[in-house]
């Protein structure tokens, strides 16, 4: 296995009595598109600040391609960053900001940048002070993708984008993945994470509670089944793998299915089911199941 793009070991950050990130050990392989999920205040942005060397860890360490994250002069030659809330100098135009970031940053593919400006429909002749949140985000996204840096750290990069631009964003992430780049994507947009990520880490109250592939995460969870019968629905609550069984109207039942569906399918066939609907839970539902009521 090659060098990890992002690696942390027992990374913690305390602000007085508040523990923003608690003993985080993470490993993101090079070439992976890695989703970083969690509710507001879970510590996602703090983790990113630690990875970028903007904040210093209380304990533990972080590495970017085996370079200590604190050594930004070296580590940042291999990454590009899009902050959650992009602030720009109001009098500089978009083109000037892009030019500055290109010349100070880790290098740039100018042709790709021009293509991205076109695709994100960004008017770079306007002063940044006149940009909306989405336009400021576009400037940062264009600057980051155009670097073709081996690691892209994106902190809720699409929160201000419209659906069309979000689609462009997904295309750019896919292109980066095809190009062998690693993407570290912190997000609330579960559909987006589901669409582009290979693996997902879920953070709650500063603690890592799950790291799994998107497919495995979904597999971990039960499939939801609705079945309609010609006559009275049978009682399936004793069947292997069936849980949460409850009637849904006179002729229907709902239950969740865990593990092999064979026993349940046999029971449904025997009971003369006329229709069944099987639904994979979305990541959102998995997410909500994790956070339940005590999500903070």
């Amino acid at each position, binding site marked *: 296995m090659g060098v990890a793009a992002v690696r942390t070991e027992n990374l913690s950050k305390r602000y007085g009595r508040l523990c923003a990130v608690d003993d985080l050990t993470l490993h993101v392989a090079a070439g992976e598109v890695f989703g970083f999920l969690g509710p507001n205040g879970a510590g996602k942005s703090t983790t990113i600040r630690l990875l*970028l060397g903007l904040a210093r860890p209380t304990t533990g360490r972080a590495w970017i391609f085996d370079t200590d994250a604190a050594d*930004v*002069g070296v580590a*940042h030659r291999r990454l590009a960053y899009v902050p959650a809330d992009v602030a720009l100098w109001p009098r500089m*135009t978009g083109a000037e900001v892009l*030019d500055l970031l290109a010349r*100070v940053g880790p290098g740039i593919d100018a042709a790709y940048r021009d293509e991205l400006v076109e695709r994100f429909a960004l*008017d770079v*002749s306007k002063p940044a002070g006149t940009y909306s949140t989405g336009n400021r985000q576009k400037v*940062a996204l264009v600057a980051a993708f155009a670097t073709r840096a081996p690691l892209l750290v994106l902190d809720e990069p699409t929160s201000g984008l419209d659906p069309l631009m979000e689609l462009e964003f997904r295309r750019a992430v896919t292109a980066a993945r095809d190009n062998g780049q690693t993407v570290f994507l912190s997000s609330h947009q579960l559909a987006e994470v589901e669409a582009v990520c290979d693996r997902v880490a879920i953070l709650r109250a500063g603690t890592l509670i799950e790291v799994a592939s998107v497919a495995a995460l979904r597999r971990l969870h039960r499939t939801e089944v609705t079945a309609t019968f010609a006559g009275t629905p049978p009682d399936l609550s004793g069947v292997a793998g069936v849980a949460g069984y409850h009637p849904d109207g006179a002729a229907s039942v709902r239950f969740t299915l865990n593990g092999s569906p064979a026993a349940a399918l046999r029971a449904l066939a025997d009971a003369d089911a006329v229709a069944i609907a099987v639904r994979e839970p979305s990541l959102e539902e998995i997410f909500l199941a994790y956070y339940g009521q005590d999500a903070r």
Partner: protein
Amino acid sequence: MSATTTEAVPGRVLAALAARQIVRGALVVTAICAGMSALVVAMYSAQALDPTALVALARNPAIRTLFGEPVALDEAGGFTVWRTGAVLTVLLGVWSSLAATRITRGEEDAGRWHLLLSGRTTLTDTVRRHLEVLAVVPLVAGAATAAAMIAAGAGVTGSLLHGAGLAMAGFFFVAVGGLTAQLFPGRSAANGAAAAVLVLGLLTRMVGDGVPALAWLRWLSPFGLVALIRAFDTNRVLPVAVLACAAVILLALTGRLAARRDVGDAVLATAGGRPARTTLLGSVHAFAARRTLRPLAGWVAGIAAYFLLIGLIARSMTDFLTTNPQFAKSAAQAGFALGTVEGYVATLFALLAVAVGVFVAVLLAAVAADENARRLTLLFAAPVTRVRLLAAEAVAASGAALILVTVAAVAVWAGTTTVGAGLTLVDALAGAFNVVPVVLLCLGAAVLALGWTPRAVAGIGALPAAGGFLWQVIADSINAPSWIGALSPFAHLDGVPATAPNLPAAAVMTAVAAACVTIGAAGYHRRDLQA
């Protein structure tokens, strides 16, 4: 729950919000105004001034240009007004306009007003309410000054009028700051415009005081109007009223302009596109220089105008002092060695140290503000170490400071040469560069603050220059023990070009500055960024 919630009055909530943002600065400004005035009144000892010399002093255009018209110097109150009035008016004016742009344009640009204005208040109400609350501060400062002077033994009428003049000048600059905040998109542009008004006002007052034919010009300047009050002499009320009217008109105009524009927008905003200007974007050093250019241009204009004027009046000033030895003596007692052109220029370069020191502090405070507003985040994410970023900013600020120092020297030289006062360019440069150690101290203090208390960069950075100057003025005024005066860096600046520079002191100050920069850089490297 909702039934028990008390109905909050939006106006009162806004007032409380505004008050919270200014209360600390307000207390400091009020304490300085009242404290300094009371101190000078209390320490005024009847240094029997010769009445004929007094008349000569009042007539001398140079004295008038520099310190304002000397009025009622035979009285504690009159002397206090002459000695502290101009400084305090400028201080209050600067603070008022800066606070006005900070709590209006600054908050709006930071996006905090969007939330505020989604409530029941309008932009006009919010702007107006903030400025009304701020306007209370100069009124309090003026009242406190008057009360302190009366308590210290100055005459009642004169003290009250002086306090009123101070208050109205502050009020005027609250309105100026509020107005420029409506006109310009961005706090720095608004501050620049307000500073231009202030400097123009000062220069107008100086010209009006110095040239009898143009004395009417003083009616056009807030500082001129304050001088026209002639507290402790004729005690005129009309200038106070004019100043108050001007402030009220500006405030009304501010409200009208606020009503006409969109939130986050400005009256003079240019929404149109323009071609990219890509010079000075190639490195963090170049970018730091680029961001310094605009403020530098403004400061160059102000400093060049001021020191040109200083040069132009040099001859008349020194001639006056050589023919009135008593004043040369009392000026020397007050720390002014004004008898020769060299001595006179050397004395006035102390003001250059204050101006350039504040300039450096303001530049580094802008770096802290950029960090706080997360504008620097994308640069911090570039392969550039923090220390290199800091070095770029410090080098840009130092370079700009040296440019200002050079401009001042050339301007003084041009002025003195025009009137044939016989100051060489080399002497002018030597005198101007003599204050560089104080500027370096400001740089060191500002870097130290940036590394350890980034919220206080402007205040701590300006402390060696502005604080040191005030310290020396107070120490001189109250004849404090010499070790107290020695705490000010200005006590260690010798009167170059009249005398040789105090090189050991310069070396010590430079070493202290270097130590501050090192400790500050270590803190900056270590701490969490606000980005």
